[in-house]
């Protein structure tokens, strides 16, 4: 197939999030963790989602898999459309425990979490836990063939001596090895989409490099899409095709990785760029963003970034209404009045 024939397929959406709102109803008030975001993940591509604590990036991921604890959490608005084999499923309309969502979790969408120690149960071997996923989704006929598949998966993610390691318990694995096992489990049913929520945050850089390379290799082999959630801008810049920047439950900017890095538009994105130390390039003085991320309980009523913004326009940015999104250049969106 030539490159031209591949292109239209490449932008085919696999998951579309439309105006998603996930709120938590607490005794002390409603926390609007995700407050009206739109995202599209295309087949075979990597969408990077960056943002600091409380921006709603993990809640978005958990909403996709319907893993939001309810109560207090609830998807109060929007659609999450999964495109699979000619049908479109709105995940927000599924019951959290019904068969369809259980099938989607694991089989259509795999997920790897930040802390692999708590993602595996301590009482069963790694092999049994991954094997269970395979059996649950009827990807193997017997426990024996599931076990063989697990060994193959462990080999694929680069775990040495998989024939022996398949019988090891999670505590016998190092952090990097557990994260590999977690990836093996997530890809065990060949998902179309892998959600990776801070997949390397607790790992050392040399191990992080191994894991990121592994993800890139798997994507090349299987053509799965990846939603990579991270606070580490450099990790996202190396991995993502498109990047969404989130702040306090809002998607403030979206564009191709090149556009986001070479021409950041939102004052928050620009501020992030000026405030991160770099390992290469000129050693400029860092210019921090003043203040701290406000608690989700006292969100500014207008633009969520207004309280820390250096381009704040009085009478506009503090107006209690949602900030519209502008397409400043093709496929580069920003929610900021400066571009009105």
């Amino acid at each position: 197939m030539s490159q031209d024939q591949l292109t239209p397929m490449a932008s085919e959406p696999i998951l579309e999030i439309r105006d998603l709102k996930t709120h938590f109803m607490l005794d002390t008030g409603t926390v609007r963790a995700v407050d009206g975001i739109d995202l599209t993940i295309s087949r075979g591509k990597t969408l990077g989602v960056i943002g600091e604590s409380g921006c709603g990036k993990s809640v978005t991921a958990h909403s996709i898999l319907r893993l939001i604890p309810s109560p207090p959490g609830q998807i109060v608005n929007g659609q999450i459309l999964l495109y699979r084999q000619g049908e479109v499923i709105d995940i927000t309309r599924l019951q959290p425990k019904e068969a369809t969502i259980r099938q989607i979790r694991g089989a259509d969408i795999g997920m790897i979490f930040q802390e692999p120690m708590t993602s595996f149960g301590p009482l069963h071997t790694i092999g049994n836990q991954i094997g269970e996923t395979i059996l649950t989704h009827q990807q193997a006929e017997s426990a024996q063939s599931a076990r063989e598949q697990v060994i193959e998966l462990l080999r694929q993610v680069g775990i040495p001596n998989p024939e022996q390691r398949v019988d090891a318990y999670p505590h016998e694995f190092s952090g990097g090895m557990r994260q590999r096992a977690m990836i093996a489990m997530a890809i065990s049913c060949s998902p179309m989409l892998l959600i990776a929520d801070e997949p390397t945050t607790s790992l050392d850089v040399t191990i992080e490099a191994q894991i990121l390379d592994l993800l890139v290799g798997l994507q090349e082999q299987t053509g799965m899409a990846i939603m990579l959630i991270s606070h580490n801008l450099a990790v996202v810049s190396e991995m993502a095709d498109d990047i969404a920047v989130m702040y306090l439950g809002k998607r403030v900017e979206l564009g191709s990785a090149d556009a986001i890095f070479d021409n950041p538009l939102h004052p928050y994105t620009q501020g992030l760029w000026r405030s991160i130390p770099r390992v290469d390039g000129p050693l400029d003085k860092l210019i921090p963003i003043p203040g701290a991320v406000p608690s989700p309980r006292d969100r500014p009523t207008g633009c969520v970034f207004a309280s820390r913004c250096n381009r704040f326009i009085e009478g506009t940015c503090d107006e209690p209404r949602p900030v519209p999104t502008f397409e400043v250049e093709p496929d580069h969106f920003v929610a900021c009045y400066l571009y009105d």
Partner: protein
Amino acid sequence: MSESEQPILEVRDLRQFFPIQEGLLRRVVGYVKAVNGVSLTINQGETLGLVGESGCGKSTLGRAILRLYEPTGGEVIFHHQDRQLSVLDLDRHGMRQVRANMQMIFQDPFASLNERMTVLDNVIEPLVCNGIGSRPEREATAENLLAQVGLRKEHLRRYPHSFSGGQRQRIGIARALSIEPKFVVADEPVFALDVSVQAQILNLMKELQAQLGLSYLFISHDMAVIRYVADRIAVMYVGKLVEYAERDELLRHPAHPYTEALHSAVPRLSQKDSGNRRRNRILLKASPPDPGNLPPGCVFQTRCHYAEEQCRQEEPPLREISTIHSVACHLAEELNLSGI
């Protein structure tokens, strides 16, 4: 620069071993060699960046220098008013005097402050412990310090829980500086902070250093952070310093294969000219050795791409290869390693 050539602290062959005990009688069956013969010098007014991955012993080294542990062997010489004090030989009284000049800033601003004490009491605690000043004098000191770290006077009466991570770290810094130390060990001081807040703390630490003539041992796993703050950089691997050089020299011309691998693993922000965002990384094999069971020869030989027979037998000493550069590698002169 003449002043900065004056050493404030010299560490010679410092060792910190922890016994591994087994059985009913808690028999000592071996030692975890967390710090295994480290020598370094920190000059007045300079920052020595100490970089390494988890478990390499960098935090233990910082604590052993302050004698928060009782080191197994070696020397720590503190230069104080034309005198050279051997910290590890001091009695309680002598230690008090030295402690007043050596302080620590901790990693986790949520764990390092006493929640039951007001900010004021947290900040002046070192003064109280060392019996410095009267209550009104201490309060005046605290007020000044709070202003210096960018907090307000009225914050003094509040309790730590009402502050964000960045503000807590400011309080932690104010506390460390309350007794006017000359030397500060900062152990991952920005690790737990959001990226936009990191820069505030890094700049604050640099400003305070310039104002007060402080010397820092700045411990971090993040090479970009180390680059921003350090004058010289020491790289630690499994209890040993493997390389030690001026900042730009270490970044551009690493002479130890481990440093080269670290540089190669560090994720970088997208650069247009590099073309390919996923660079060819040097992927290290496996994980670091167990510090309780070290390999023969060089500590890095089990993961080194360049290791030869000599490396498996003889341990390379840390030696000077130029006036600004020391390295512990047999092959330093033969290898042509790539930097950042």
